[in-house]
Protein backbone atom coordinates (compact mmCIF):
# COMPACT_ATOMS: atom_id res chain seq x y z
CA UNK A 1 0.00 0.00 0.00
CA UNK A 2 1.18 3.45 -0.78
CA UNK A 3 1.43 6.27 1.69
CA UNK A 4 -1.57 7.86 0.08
CA UNK A 5 -3.75 4.82 0.64
CA UNK A 6 -2.79 4.71 4.29
CA UNK A 7 -4.05 8.17 4.83
CA UNK A 8 -7.47 7.46 3.36
CA UNK A 9 -10.07 7.47 6.13
CA UNK A 10 -13.14 6.93 3.99
CA UNK A 11 -13.02 5.00 0.79
CA UNK A 12 -16.19 4.16 -1.10
CA UNK A 13 -16.10 2.11 -4.28
CA UNK A 14 -19.30 1.70 -6.28
CA UNK A 15 -21.43 1.88 -3.17
CA UNK A 16 -25.17 1.47 -3.70
CA UNK A 17 -28.04 1.43 -1.26
CA UNK A 18 -31.44 0.10 -2.16
CA UNK A 19 -34.47 0.31 0.12
CA UNK A 20 -37.56 -1.84 -0.33
CA UNK A 21 -38.17 -4.52 -2.89
CA UNK A 22 -39.90 -4.96 -6.23
CA UNK A 23 -42.00 -1.98 -7.31
CA UNK A 24 -41.42 -0.11 -4.05
CA UNK A 25 -37.69 -0.29 -4.61
CA UNK A 26 -35.86 2.96 -3.99
CA UNK A 27 -32.28 3.39 -5.12
CA UNK A 28 -31.00 5.88 -2.59
CA UNK A 29 -27.41 5.54 -3.72
CA UNK A 30 -26.66 4.52 -7.27
CA UNK A 31 -22.93 3.85 -7.23
CA UNK A 32 -20.77 6.23 -5.23
CA UNK A 33 -17.02 6.51 -5.44
CA UNK A 34 -15.67 8.76 -2.75
CA UNK A 35 -12.39 9.05 -0.99
CA UNK A 36 -11.80 11.25 2.04
CA UNK A 37 -8.34 11.50 3.52
CA UNK A 38 -7.48 12.06 7.14
CA UNK A 39 -7.52 15.71 8.17
CA UNK A 40 -9.93 16.84 5.45
CA UNK A 41 -12.94 19.03 6.04
CA UNK A 42 -15.62 18.13 3.59
CA UNK A 43 -19.19 19.27 2.99
CA UNK A 44 -21.79 16.95 1.52
CA UNK A 45 -24.46 18.98 -0.25
CA UNK A 46 -27.64 18.09 -1.96
CA UNK A 47 -31.38 18.49 -1.81
CA UNK A 48 -33.51 16.19 0.21
CA UNK A 49 -33.79 12.88 -1.56
CA UNK A 50 -30.43 13.32 -3.20
CA UNK A 51 -28.96 10.47 -1.17
CA UNK A 52 -26.76 12.57 1.09
CA UNK A 53 -28.37 11.30 4.28
CA UNK A 54 -28.08 7.71 3.14
CA UNK A 55 -24.46 8.38 2.34
CA UNK A 56 -23.95 9.82 5.81
CA UNK A 57 -25.55 6.75 7.41
CA UNK A 58 -23.16 4.51 5.55
CA UNK A 59 -20.13 6.70 6.21
CA UNK A 60 -21.12 6.79 9.90
CA UNK A 61 -21.34 2.98 9.97
CA UNK A 62 -24.99 3.20 11.00
CA UNK A 63 -25.95 1.24 7.91
CA UNK A 64 -24.25 -1.17 5.53
CA UNK A 65 -24.19 -0.68 1.74
CA UNK A 66 -26.30 -2.93 -0.47
CA UNK A 67 -23.41 -3.43 -2.84
CA UNK A 68 -19.99 -2.00 -3.44
CA UNK A 69 -17.21 -1.62 -0.93
CA UNK A 70 -16.93 0.85 1.90
CA UNK A 71 -13.59 0.96 3.68
CA UNK A 72 -13.39 2.92 6.88
CA UNK A 73 -9.84 3.05 8.18
CA UNK A 74 -9.19 0.25 5.71
CA UNK A 75 -11.86 -1.91 7.38
CA UNK A 76 -14.52 -3.28 5.07
CA UNK A 77 -17.66 -2.10 6.83
CA UNK A 78 -19.94 -4.17 4.61
CA UNK A 79 -18.58 -7.32 6.22
CA UNK A 80 -19.29 -6.23 9.79
CA UNK A 81 -22.35 -7.06 11.85
CA UNK A 82 -24.37 -4.56 13.91
CA UNK A 83 -22.22 -5.07 16.97
CA UNK A 84 -18.91 -4.57 15.22
CA UNK A 85 -20.24 -1.44 13.54
CA UNK A 86 -21.31 -0.15 16.95
CA UNK A 87 -17.77 -0.67 18.23
CA UNK A 88 -16.38 1.15 15.21
CA UNK A 89 -18.67 4.11 15.95
CA UNK A 90 -17.79 4.00 19.60
CA UNK A 91 -14.07 4.29 19.01
CA UNK A 92 -13.66 6.32 15.84
CA UNK A 93 -16.74 8.38 15.02
CA UNK A 94 -18.30 11.38 16.72
CA UNK A 95 -21.82 12.40 15.71
CA UNK A 96 -23.43 15.82 15.73
CA UNK A 97 -27.10 15.94 14.83
CA UNK A 98 -29.44 18.64 13.61
CA UNK A 99 -31.68 18.19 16.65
CA UNK A 100 -28.72 18.11 19.08
CA UNK A 101 -30.01 14.82 20.56
CA UNK A 102 -28.85 15.56 24.07
CA UNK A 103 -30.32 13.55 26.94
CA UNK A 104 -33.02 15.66 28.54
CA UNK A 105 -32.76 16.59 32.21
CA UNK A 106 -29.13 15.52 32.17
CA UNK A 107 -26.30 17.96 32.76
CA UNK A 108 -23.95 19.02 29.97
CA UNK A 109 -21.14 17.26 31.78
CA UNK A 110 -23.00 13.96 31.90
CA UNK A 111 -24.08 14.27 28.29
CA UNK A 112 -20.49 14.68 27.23
CA UNK A 113 -19.42 11.75 29.41
CA UNK A 114 -21.92 9.40 27.76
CA UNK A 115 -19.70 8.05 24.93
CA UNK A 116 -16.87 7.63 27.45
CA UNK A 117 -19.15 5.46 29.58
CA UNK A 118 -19.52 3.12 26.64
CA UNK A 119 -15.77 3.19 26.12
CA UNK A 120 -15.35 2.02 29.73
CA UNK A 121 -13.30 5.08 30.69
CA UNK A 122 -12.95 5.25 34.50
CA UNK A 123 -15.17 7.83 36.17
CA UNK A 124 -12.42 10.23 37.24
CA UNK A 125 -10.85 10.30 33.80
CA UNK A 126 -14.28 10.64 32.24
CA UNK A 127 -14.98 13.75 34.26
CA UNK A 128 -11.67 15.30 33.27
CA UNK A 129 -12.05 14.57 29.56
CA UNK A 130 -15.61 15.87 29.49
CA UNK A 131 -14.55 19.03 31.25
CA UNK A 132 -11.73 19.57 28.79
CA UNK A 133 -14.08 18.99 25.84
CA UNK A 134 -16.59 21.48 27.19
CA UNK A 135 -13.81 24.01 27.66
CA UNK A 136 -12.71 23.45 24.09
CA UNK A 137 -16.17 24.36 22.76
CA UNK A 138 -16.26 27.42 25.01
CA UNK A 139 -18.68 26.15 27.62
CA UNK A 140 -16.39 26.09 30.64
CA UNK A 141 -18.43 26.79 33.75
CA UNK A 142 -21.67 25.43 32.25
CA UNK A 143 -20.96 21.80 33.13
CA UNK A 144 -23.96 21.45 35.39
CA UNK A 145 -26.44 23.13 33.05
CA UNK A 146 -29.19 20.94 31.69
CA UNK A 147 -30.09 21.16 27.95
CA UNK A 148 -33.24 23.18 28.65
CA UNK A 149 -31.11 25.77 30.44
CA UNK A 150 -28.92 26.32 27.38
CA UNK A 151 -29.54 28.14 24.11
CA UNK A 152 -29.68 26.25 20.82
CA UNK A 153 -26.14 27.26 19.92
CA UNK A 154 -24.89 26.19 23.33
CA UNK A 155 -26.72 22.88 23.07
CA UNK A 156 -25.06 22.21 19.74
CA UNK A 157 -21.70 23.03 21.34
CA UNK A 158 -22.44 20.46 24.05
CA UNK A 159 -23.21 17.97 21.29
CA UNK A 160 -19.92 18.79 19.60
CA UNK A 161 -18.12 18.38 22.91
CA UNK A 162 -19.79 15.00 23.29
CA UNK A 163 -18.56 14.00 19.84
CA UNK A 164 -15.08 15.25 20.69
CA UNK A 165 -14.78 13.69 24.10
CA UNK A 166 -13.83 10.30 22.72
CA UNK A 167 -11.12 11.70 20.39
CA UNK A 168 -12.75 10.44 17.17
CA UNK A 169 -10.98 10.09 13.82
CA UNK A 170 -14.11 11.36 12.09
CA UNK A 171 -16.58 13.99 13.20
CA UNK A 172 -19.81 13.51 11.32
CA UNK A 173 -22.19 16.47 11.47
CA UNK A 174 -25.68 16.00 10.02
CA UNK A 175 -27.16 19.45 9.33
CA UNK A 176 -25.50 20.82 12.46
CA UNK A 177 -26.81 24.33 11.81
CA UNK A 178 -30.30 23.35 10.69
CA UNK A 179 -31.92 24.53 13.91
CA UNK A 180 -29.80 27.62 14.48
CA UNK A 181 -29.95 31.24 13.31
CA UNK A 182 -27.25 32.47 10.96
CA UNK A 183 -25.02 34.03 13.65
CA UNK A 184 -25.07 30.82 15.77
CA UNK A 185 -24.61 28.76 12.60
CA UNK A 186 -21.46 30.64 11.72
CA UNK A 187 -20.15 30.15 15.25
CA UNK A 188 -20.73 26.42 15.13
CA UNK A 189 -19.10 26.14 11.71
CA UNK A 190 -16.12 28.17 12.89
CA UNK A 191 -15.77 25.83 15.82
CA UNK A 192 -15.72 22.86 13.47
CA UNK A 193 -13.13 24.55 11.26
CA UNK A 194 -11.02 25.27 14.31
CA UNK A 195 -11.21 21.66 15.47
CA UNK A 196 -10.24 20.49 12.01
CA UNK A 197 -7.26 22.82 11.83
CA UNK A 198 -5.98 22.60 15.34
CA UNK A 199 -6.66 19.00 16.16
CA UNK A 200 -6.52 17.47 12.75
CA UNK A 201 -9.92 15.83 13.09
CA UNK A 202 -11.52 14.84 9.84
CA UNK A 203 -14.85 16.64 9.63
CA UNK A 204 -17.74 15.78 7.36
CA UNK A 205 -20.67 18.18 7.32
CA UNK A 206 -23.94 17.28 5.66
CA UNK A 207 -25.85 20.41 4.76
CA UNK A 208 -28.13 21.92 2.15
CA UNK A 209 -26.99 25.50 2.80
CA UNK A 210 -24.22 26.68 0.48
CA UNK A 211 -23.10 29.23 3.10
CA UNK A 212 -22.19 26.41 5.44
CA UNK A 213 -20.38 24.53 2.73
CA UNK A 214 -18.30 27.64 2.24
CA UNK A 215 -16.51 26.85 5.48
CA UNK A 216 -15.14 23.61 4.05
CA UNK A 217 -12.18 23.09 1.75
CA UNK A 218 -14.01 20.49 -0.26
CA UNK A 219 -17.64 20.22 -1.33
CA UNK A 220 -19.28 17.15 -2.77
CA UNK A 221 -22.71 17.59 -4.26
CA UNK A 222 -25.20 14.77 -4.55
CA UNK A 223 -28.12 14.45 -6.90
CA UNK A 224 -30.35 11.41 -7.45
CA UNK A 225 -28.04 9.10 -5.58
CA UNK A 226 -24.97 10.09 -7.56
CA UNK A 227 -22.13 12.51 -7.05
CA UNK A 228 -22.78 15.55 -9.21
CA UNK A 229 -19.64 17.47 -8.42
CA UNK A 230 -16.59 17.30 -6.21
CA UNK A 231 -14.85 20.67 -5.84
CA UNK A 232 -11.88 21.71 -3.78
CA UNK A 233 -11.13 25.25 -2.82
CA UNK A 234 -7.71 26.34 -3.93
CA UNK A 235 -5.71 26.55 -0.75
Amino acid at each position, binding site marked *: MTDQAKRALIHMLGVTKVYGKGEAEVRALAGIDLRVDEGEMIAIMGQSGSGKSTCM*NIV*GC*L*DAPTSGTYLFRNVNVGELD*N*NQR*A*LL*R*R*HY*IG*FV*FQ*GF*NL*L*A*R*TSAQENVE*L*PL*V*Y*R*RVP*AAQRREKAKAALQLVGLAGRESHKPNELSGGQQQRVAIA*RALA*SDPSLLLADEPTGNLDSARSAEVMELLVQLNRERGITVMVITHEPEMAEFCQRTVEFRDGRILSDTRKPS
Partner: protein
Amino acid sequence: MITATIIMALREIRRNLMRSSLTMLGVVIGVGAVVALVSIGRGATESVTASIASMGHNMLTISPGAARRGGARTPSTPFKMEDVTAIQNDIRGLAAIAPTGSRSLMLVYGNKNWRASVTGTNEDYVRVRNYAVAYGREMSAADVRSGRAVCMLGATTKKELFGSQDAIGESIRVDKISCEVIAVLKPKGEGGMGQDQDDLVIMPLLTFQRRIAGNRDVSTIYVSVDEGRPSSLVKDQITSLMREKRRTARGAEDDFNVRDMAELMATMESTTTALTALLGAIAAVSLIVGGIGIMNIMLVSVTERTREIGTRLAIGATGKEVLMQFLVEAVMLSTLGGCIGVVLGVGGAGIASKYLNIPFVVVPEIIMVAFLFSATIGVVFGFLPARKAANLNPIEALRHE
Protein backbone atom coordinates in the same frame (compact mmCIF):
# COMPACT_ATOMS: atom_id res chain seq x y z
CA MET B 1 -19.72 -0.44 33.31
CA ILE B 2 -22.30 -2.19 35.47
CA THR B 3 -22.08 0.53 38.12
CA ALA B 4 -22.49 3.13 35.43
CA THR B 5 -25.53 1.22 34.16
CA ILE B 6 -27.02 1.03 37.63
CA ILE B 7 -26.41 4.73 38.23
CA MET B 8 -27.99 5.46 34.87
CA ALA B 9 -31.01 3.35 35.77
CA LEU B 10 -31.40 5.01 39.16
CA ARG B 11 -31.19 8.43 37.54
CA GLU B 12 -33.84 7.41 35.05
CA ILE B 13 -36.09 6.23 37.88
CA ARG B 14 -35.57 9.48 39.76
CA ARG B 15 -36.11 11.54 36.64
CA ASN B 16 -39.66 10.22 36.43
CA LEU B 17 -40.33 9.84 40.11
CA MET B 18 -44.11 9.95 39.95
CA ARG B 19 -44.33 7.39 37.19
CA SER B 20 -41.67 5.18 38.75
CA SER B 21 -43.43 5.06 42.09
CA LEU B 22 -46.75 4.25 40.46
CA THR B 23 -45.05 1.51 38.48
CA MET B 24 -43.46 0.14 41.61
CA LEU B 25 -46.77 0.22 43.46
CA GLY B 26 -47.90 -3.04 41.88
CA VAL B 27 -44.82 -4.86 43.10
CA VAL B 28 -44.95 -3.07 46.46
CA ILE B 29 -48.50 -4.30 47.00
CA GLY B 30 -47.69 -7.77 45.72
CA VAL B 31 -44.60 -8.29 47.87
CA GLY B 32 -46.21 -6.54 50.83
CA ALA B 33 -49.27 -8.77 50.59
CA VAL B 34 -47.23 -11.96 50.33
CA VAL B 35 -45.00 -11.05 53.25
CA ALA B 36 -47.82 -9.78 55.44
CA LEU B 37 -50.22 -12.65 54.76
CA VAL B 38 -47.63 -15.35 55.21
CA SER B 39 -46.34 -13.72 58.40
CA ILE B 40 -49.85 -13.42 59.80
CA GLY B 41 -50.58 -17.00 58.76
CA ARG B 42 -47.43 -18.19 60.47
CA GLY B 43 -48.36 -16.22 63.57
CA ALA B 44 -51.82 -17.77 63.59
CA THR B 45 -50.34 -21.25 63.28
CA GLU B 46 -48.02 -20.54 66.13
CA SER B 47 -50.78 -19.21 68.33
CA VAL B 48 -52.93 -22.27 67.62
CA THR B 49 -50.10 -24.69 68.37
CA ALA B 50 -49.20 -22.76 71.47
CA SER B 51 -52.74 -22.84 72.77
CA ILE B 52 -53.11 -26.53 72.03
CA ALA B 53 -49.81 -27.18 73.75
CA SER B 54 -51.09 -25.14 76.68
CA MET B 55 -53.98 -27.55 77.05
CA GLY B 56 -51.57 -30.26 78.01
CA HIS B 57 -48.24 -31.61 77.07
CA ASN B 58 -48.16 -34.82 75.03
CA MET B 59 -51.65 -35.40 76.27
CA LEU B 60 -54.36 -37.92 75.54
CA THR B 61 -57.90 -37.40 76.73
CA ILE B 62 -60.15 -40.39 77.21
CA SER B 63 -63.81 -39.57 77.55
CA PRO B 64 -66.96 -41.63 77.52
CA GLY B 65 -69.30 -41.39 74.56
CA ALA B 66 -68.65 -42.09 70.89
CA ALA B 67 -66.57 -39.63 68.94
CA ARG B 68 -69.32 -39.25 66.34
CA ARG B 69 -69.96 -35.70 65.30
CA GLY B 70 -73.48 -34.41 65.00
CA GLY B 71 -76.55 -36.53 65.51
CA ALA B 72 -77.75 -37.73 68.88
CA ARG B 73 -75.07 -38.80 71.29
CA THR B 74 -75.84 -42.13 72.78
CA PRO B 75 -75.59 -41.82 76.54
CA SER B 76 -72.74 -44.01 77.57
CA THR B 77 -71.45 -45.40 80.77
CA PRO B 78 -68.85 -43.33 82.54
CA PHE B 79 -65.50 -44.80 83.53
CA LYS B 80 -64.85 -46.35 86.91
CA MET B 81 -61.78 -46.03 89.09
CA GLU B 82 -60.92 -49.62 88.06
CA ASP B 83 -60.49 -48.42 84.47
CA VAL B 84 -58.05 -45.81 85.66
CA THR B 85 -56.09 -48.39 87.64
CA ALA B 86 -56.07 -50.71 84.64
CA ILE B 87 -54.62 -48.05 82.40
CA GLN B 88 -52.08 -47.21 85.06
CA ASN B 89 -51.00 -50.81 85.42
CA ASP B 90 -51.22 -52.14 81.87
CA ILE B 91 -50.01 -49.32 79.68
CA ARG B 92 -46.33 -48.55 79.60
CA GLY B 93 -44.87 -45.15 78.92
CA LEU B 94 -47.30 -42.96 80.83
CA ALA B 95 -45.83 -39.98 82.65
CA ALA B 96 -48.98 -39.24 84.60
CA ILE B 97 -52.66 -40.01 84.65
CA ALA B 98 -55.43 -37.81 86.00
CA PRO B 99 -58.99 -39.10 86.25
CA THR B 100 -61.57 -36.35 86.53
CA GLY B 101 -65.18 -35.72 87.32
CA SER B 102 -66.49 -32.35 86.38
CA ARG B 103 -69.55 -30.19 86.64
CA SER B 104 -70.54 -26.60 86.19
CA LEU B 105 -71.55 -25.32 89.61
CA MET B 106 -72.44 -22.13 91.43
CA LEU B 107 -69.67 -20.76 93.66
CA VAL B 108 -70.34 -18.35 96.49
CA TYR B 109 -67.96 -16.19 98.44
CA GLY B 110 -69.41 -13.44 100.63
CA ASN B 111 -71.97 -11.68 98.46
CA LYS B 112 -70.36 -12.81 95.19
CA ASN B 113 -71.77 -15.56 92.99
CA TRP B 114 -69.96 -17.13 90.06
CA ARG B 115 -70.58 -20.17 87.91
CA ALA B 116 -67.51 -22.16 86.97
CA SER B 117 -66.46 -25.61 85.98
CA VAL B 118 -65.57 -27.66 89.06
CA THR B 119 -63.22 -30.56 88.49
CA GLY B 120 -62.45 -33.33 90.93
CA THR B 121 -59.14 -34.94 90.18
CA ASN B 122 -55.80 -36.04 91.62
CA GLU B 123 -52.50 -34.30 92.28
CA ASP B 124 -51.19 -35.06 88.78
CA TYR B 125 -53.84 -32.99 87.02
CA VAL B 126 -51.90 -29.75 87.33
CA ARG B 127 -48.90 -31.30 85.62
CA VAL B 128 -50.85 -33.15 82.92
CA ARG B 129 -52.84 -30.06 81.95
CA ASN B 130 -49.85 -27.77 82.07
CA TYR B 131 -51.10 -25.61 84.90
CA ALA B 132 -48.84 -24.00 87.44
CA VAL B 133 -49.53 -22.65 90.90
CA ALA B 134 -49.16 -18.88 91.15
CA TYR B 135 -49.34 -18.80 94.93
CA GLY B 136 -50.49 -21.10 97.71
CA ARG B 137 -49.68 -24.76 97.96
CA GLU B 138 -50.42 -27.39 95.40
CA MET B 139 -53.03 -30.04 96.17
CA SER B 140 -51.11 -32.96 97.65
CA ALA B 141 -51.48 -36.72 97.32
CA ALA B 142 -52.64 -36.76 100.93
CA ASP B 143 -55.42 -34.25 100.16
CA VAL B 144 -56.53 -36.49 97.32
CA ARG B 145 -56.34 -39.72 99.29
CA SER B 146 -58.33 -38.48 102.24
CA GLY B 147 -60.74 -36.38 100.21
CA ARG B 148 -60.23 -33.10 102.02
CA ALA B 149 -62.44 -30.13 101.31
CA VAL B 150 -59.75 -28.02 99.68
CA CYS B 151 -59.65 -26.40 96.28
CA MET B 152 -57.43 -24.53 93.83
CA LEU B 153 -58.87 -21.65 91.79
CA GLY B 154 -58.15 -20.67 88.23
CA ALA B 155 -57.05 -17.08 87.67
CA THR B 156 -60.41 -15.98 86.24
CA THR B 157 -62.43 -17.64 88.98
CA LYS B 158 -60.25 -16.07 91.65
CA LYS B 159 -60.68 -12.65 90.11
CA GLU B 160 -64.46 -12.99 89.89
CA LEU B 161 -64.85 -14.12 93.49
CA PHE B 162 -62.10 -12.26 95.28
CA GLY B 163 -61.07 -9.41 93.04
CA SER B 164 -57.68 -8.25 94.19
CA GLN B 165 -58.20 -9.66 97.68
CA ASP B 166 -56.05 -12.56 98.90
CA ALA B 167 -57.89 -15.85 98.49
CA ILE B 168 -55.57 -18.30 100.20
CA GLY B 169 -57.05 -19.76 103.38
CA GLU B 170 -60.54 -18.38 102.64
CA SER B 171 -63.50 -20.68 102.40
CA ILE B 172 -65.86 -20.65 99.44
CA ARG B 173 -69.12 -22.47 98.95
CA VAL B 174 -69.06 -24.94 96.11
CA ASP B 175 -72.60 -26.13 95.53
CA LYS B 176 -73.54 -27.39 99.00
CA ILE B 177 -70.12 -27.80 100.51
CA SER B 178 -67.66 -25.39 101.99
CA CYS B 179 -64.16 -25.61 100.63
CA GLU B 180 -60.85 -24.02 101.63
CA VAL B 181 -58.85 -22.26 98.93
CA ILE B 182 -55.26 -23.53 99.07
CA ALA B 183 -53.89 -22.21 95.77
CA VAL B 184 -54.47 -19.89 92.84
CA LEU B 185 -53.22 -21.01 89.41
CA LYS B 186 -51.24 -19.00 86.92
CA PRO B 187 -53.32 -17.84 83.97
CA LYS B 188 -53.05 -19.98 80.84
CA GLY B 189 -55.21 -18.05 78.41
CA GLU B 190 -57.56 -19.40 75.80
CA GLY B 191 -57.51 -23.05 74.80
CA GLY B 192 -57.38 -24.35 71.24
CA MET B 193 -61.14 -23.91 70.86
CA GLY B 194 -61.25 -20.46 72.37
CA GLN B 195 -62.51 -21.48 75.79
CA ASP B 196 -61.21 -19.79 78.93
CA GLN B 197 -58.91 -22.29 80.63
CA ASP B 198 -58.60 -20.18 83.73
CA ASP B 199 -62.20 -20.34 84.86
CA LEU B 200 -62.14 -23.47 86.99
CA VAL B 201 -62.02 -24.95 90.44
CA ILE B 202 -59.91 -28.03 91.13
CA MET B 203 -60.56 -30.26 94.15
CA PRO B 204 -59.72 -33.83 95.16
CA LEU B 205 -61.65 -36.40 93.11
CA LEU B 206 -62.85 -38.20 96.20
CA THR B 207 -64.31 -34.99 97.62
CA PHE B 208 -66.05 -34.31 94.31
CA GLN B 209 -67.45 -37.84 94.02
CA ARG B 210 -68.66 -38.12 97.61
CA ARG B 211 -69.94 -34.67 98.34
CA ILE B 212 -70.97 -33.26 94.98
CA ALA B 213 -71.64 -35.99 92.42
CA GLY B 214 -72.77 -38.59 94.87
CA ASN B 215 -71.30 -41.45 92.87
CA ARG B 216 -67.91 -42.98 92.07
CA ASP B 217 -67.92 -42.22 88.37
CA VAL B 218 -65.01 -40.86 86.43
CA SER B 219 -65.77 -38.87 83.30
CA THR B 220 -62.68 -37.75 81.43
CA ILE B 221 -59.28 -39.29 82.02
CA TYR B 222 -56.25 -37.19 81.11
CA VAL B 223 -53.07 -39.06 80.33
CA SER B 224 -49.66 -37.57 79.81
CA VAL B 225 -47.40 -39.71 77.62
CA ASP B 226 -43.68 -40.04 78.26
CA GLU B 227 -41.53 -37.81 76.09
CA GLY B 228 -40.31 -39.72 73.06
CA ARG B 229 -43.01 -42.37 73.20
CA PRO B 230 -45.34 -42.11 70.21
CA SER B 231 -48.71 -40.95 71.51
CA SER B 232 -50.53 -42.71 68.68
CA LEU B 233 -49.22 -46.07 69.92
CA VAL B 234 -50.37 -45.35 73.47
CA LYS B 235 -53.69 -44.23 72.07
CA ASP B 236 -54.18 -47.57 70.30
CA GLN B 237 -53.21 -49.53 73.41
CA ILE B 238 -55.62 -47.57 75.59
CA THR B 239 -58.38 -48.01 73.04
CA SER B 240 -58.07 -51.78 72.96
CA LEU B 241 -57.72 -51.96 76.73
CA MET B 242 -60.88 -49.92 77.23
CA ARG B 243 -62.81 -51.94 74.68
CA GLU B 244 -61.86 -55.03 76.64
CA LYS B 245 -62.75 -53.50 80.01
CA ARG B 246 -66.07 -52.16 78.74
CA ARG B 247 -66.81 -55.37 76.86
CA THR B 248 -67.42 -53.66 73.59
CA ALA B 249 -68.58 -56.19 71.01
CA ARG B 250 -66.23 -56.99 68.16
CA GLY B 251 -67.00 -54.69 65.25
CA ALA B 252 -69.07 -52.34 67.37
CA GLU B 253 -68.09 -48.71 67.57
CA ASP B 254 -66.15 -47.45 70.56
CA ASP B 255 -68.47 -46.03 73.20
CA PHE B 256 -65.70 -43.75 74.38
CA ASN B 257 -63.17 -41.70 72.59
CA VAL B 258 -59.45 -41.16 72.94
CA ARG B 259 -58.22 -37.86 71.66
CA ASP B 260 -54.59 -37.25 70.91
CA MET B 261 -53.47 -33.65 71.36
CA ALA B 262 -50.49 -34.21 69.09
CA GLU B 263 -52.88 -35.40 66.39
CA LEU B 264 -55.15 -32.43 66.92
CA MET B 265 -52.17 -30.14 66.78
CA ALA B 266 -50.99 -31.68 63.52
CA THR B 267 -54.46 -31.27 62.01
CA MET B 268 -54.74 -27.66 63.09
CA GLU B 269 -51.25 -26.95 61.87
CA SER B 270 -51.83 -28.46 58.46
CA THR B 271 -55.08 -26.51 58.15
CA THR B 272 -53.48 -23.19 58.92
CA THR B 273 -50.48 -24.02 56.72
CA ALA B 274 -52.82 -24.78 53.83
CA LEU B 275 -54.65 -21.51 54.43
CA THR B 276 -51.38 -19.61 54.57
CA ALA B 277 -50.27 -21.20 51.32
CA LEU B 278 -53.56 -20.25 49.71
CA LEU B 279 -53.32 -16.65 50.85
CA GLY B 280 -49.70 -16.52 49.73
CA ALA B 281 -50.68 -17.84 46.30
CA ILE B 282 -53.38 -15.20 45.90
CA ALA B 283 -50.88 -12.54 46.90
CA ALA B 284 -48.36 -13.97 44.43
CA VAL B 285 -50.88 -13.39 41.65
CA SER B 286 -50.92 -9.72 42.54
CA LEU B 287 -47.14 -9.78 42.31
CA ILE B 288 -47.39 -11.03 38.74
CA VAL B 289 -49.92 -8.32 37.97
CA GLY B 290 -47.40 -5.85 39.35
CA GLY B 291 -44.81 -7.29 36.96
CA ILE B 292 -47.14 -6.75 34.03
CA GLY B 293 -47.48 -3.14 35.18
CA ILE B 294 -43.72 -2.76 35.01
CA MET B 295 -43.67 -4.24 31.52
CA ASN B 296 -46.36 -1.81 30.39
CA ILE B 297 -44.56 1.24 31.65
CA MET B 298 -41.22 0.06 30.31
CA LEU B 299 -42.76 -0.44 26.87
CA VAL B 300 -44.14 3.10 26.99
CA SER B 301 -40.79 4.33 28.19
CA VAL B 302 -38.96 2.66 25.30
CA THR B 303 -41.29 4.31 22.78
CA GLU B 304 -40.90 7.64 24.52
CA ARG B 305 -37.16 7.41 24.61
CA THR B 306 -36.68 6.15 21.07
CA ARG B 307 -34.58 9.17 20.12
CA GLU B 308 -32.43 8.75 23.19
CA ILE B 309 -31.90 5.10 22.32
CA GLY B 310 -31.01 6.13 18.77
CA THR B 311 -28.47 8.61 20.11
CA ARG B 312 -26.93 6.01 22.38
CA LEU B 313 -26.69 3.51 19.52
CA ALA B 314 -25.12 6.14 17.24
CA ILE B 315 -22.62 7.10 19.93
CA GLY B 316 -21.49 3.50 20.06
CA ALA B 317 -23.70 1.58 22.45
CA THR B 318 -24.19 -2.00 21.31
CA GLY B 319 -27.64 -3.56 21.28
CA LYS B 320 -26.60 -5.67 24.24
CA GLU B 321 -25.71 -2.59 26.26
CA VAL B 322 -29.04 -0.94 25.52
CA LEU B 323 -30.77 -4.19 26.46
CA MET B 324 -28.86 -4.27 29.74
CA GLN B 325 -29.72 -0.66 30.46
CA PHE B 326 -33.45 -1.24 30.20
CA LEU B 327 -33.28 -4.58 31.91
CA VAL B 328 -31.38 -3.11 34.83
CA GLU B 329 -33.93 -0.32 35.00
CA ALA B 330 -36.80 -2.81 35.19
CA VAL B 331 -35.00 -4.91 37.78
CA MET B 332 -34.21 -1.79 39.82
CA LEU B 333 -37.86 -0.79 39.74
CA SER B 334 -39.04 -4.21 40.81
CA THR B 335 -36.42 -4.77 43.51
CA LEU B 336 -36.93 -1.28 44.91
CA GLY B 337 -40.63 -2.06 44.95
CA GLY B 338 -39.76 -5.37 46.58
CA CYS B 339 -37.77 -3.67 49.35
CA ILE B 340 -40.57 -1.23 50.09
CA GLY B 341 -43.04 -4.11 49.94
CA VAL B 342 -41.03 -6.13 52.46
CA VAL B 343 -40.94 -3.19 54.86
CA LEU B 344 -44.65 -2.52 54.48
CA GLY B 345 -45.48 -6.21 54.66
CA VAL B 346 -43.53 -6.75 57.88
CA GLY B 347 -44.96 -3.56 59.35
CA GLY B 348 -48.47 -4.53 58.30
CA ALA B 349 -48.06 -7.99 59.79
CA GLY B 350 -46.82 -6.39 63.01
CA ILE B 351 -49.87 -4.16 63.27
CA ALA B 352 -52.29 -6.90 62.24
CA SER B 353 -50.86 -9.40 64.72
CA LYS B 354 -51.32 -6.84 67.46
CA TYR B 355 -55.01 -6.48 66.63
CA LEU B 356 -55.56 -10.17 65.98
CA ASN B 357 -53.78 -11.01 69.21
CA ILE B 358 -51.39 -13.48 67.63
CA PRO B 359 -47.61 -13.64 67.94
CA PHE B 360 -45.72 -11.43 65.48
CA VAL B 361 -43.58 -13.75 63.41
CA VAL B 362 -41.02 -12.52 60.89
CA VAL B 363 -40.45 -15.24 58.34
CA PRO B 364 -37.01 -14.64 56.80
CA GLU B 365 -37.45 -17.29 54.11
CA ILE B 366 -40.59 -15.70 52.76
CA ILE B 367 -38.97 -12.27 52.78
CA MET B 368 -36.08 -13.68 50.77
CA VAL B 369 -38.41 -15.51 48.41
CA ALA B 370 -40.64 -12.49 47.87
CA PHE B 371 -37.63 -10.29 47.28
CA LEU B 372 -36.00 -12.67 44.82
CA PHE B 373 -39.34 -13.22 43.14
CA SER B 374 -39.73 -9.48 42.65
CA ALA B 375 -36.25 -9.26 41.13
CA THR B 376 -37.09 -12.17 38.85
CA ILE B 377 -40.25 -10.41 37.81
CA GLY B 378 -38.14 -7.42 36.83
CA VAL B 379 -35.99 -9.63 34.63
CA VAL B 380 -38.90 -11.51 33.09
CA PHE B 381 -41.18 -8.56 32.43
CA GLY B 382 -38.34 -6.17 31.69
CA PHE B 383 -36.94 -8.39 28.98
CA LEU B 384 -39.54 -7.73 26.30
CA PRO B 385 -39.29 -3.92 26.47
CA ALA B 386 -35.51 -4.10 26.75
CA ARG B 387 -35.27 -6.29 23.68
CA LYS B 388 -37.53 -3.91 21.84
CA ALA B 389 -35.16 -1.08 22.69
CA ALA B 390 -32.06 -3.06 21.75
CA ASN B 391 -33.48 -4.06 18.37
CA LEU B 392 -34.29 -0.52 17.31
CA ASN B 393 -32.71 0.58 14.08
CA PRO B 394 -30.46 3.51 15.01
CA ILE B 395 -31.27 5.47 11.85
CA GLU B 396 -35.02 5.25 12.36
CA ALA B 397 -34.66 5.82 16.09
CA LEU B 398 -32.68 9.01 15.49
CA ARG B 399 -35.35 10.30 13.16
CA HIS B 400 -38.18 9.42 15.58
CA GLU B 401 -40.19 12.42 16.72
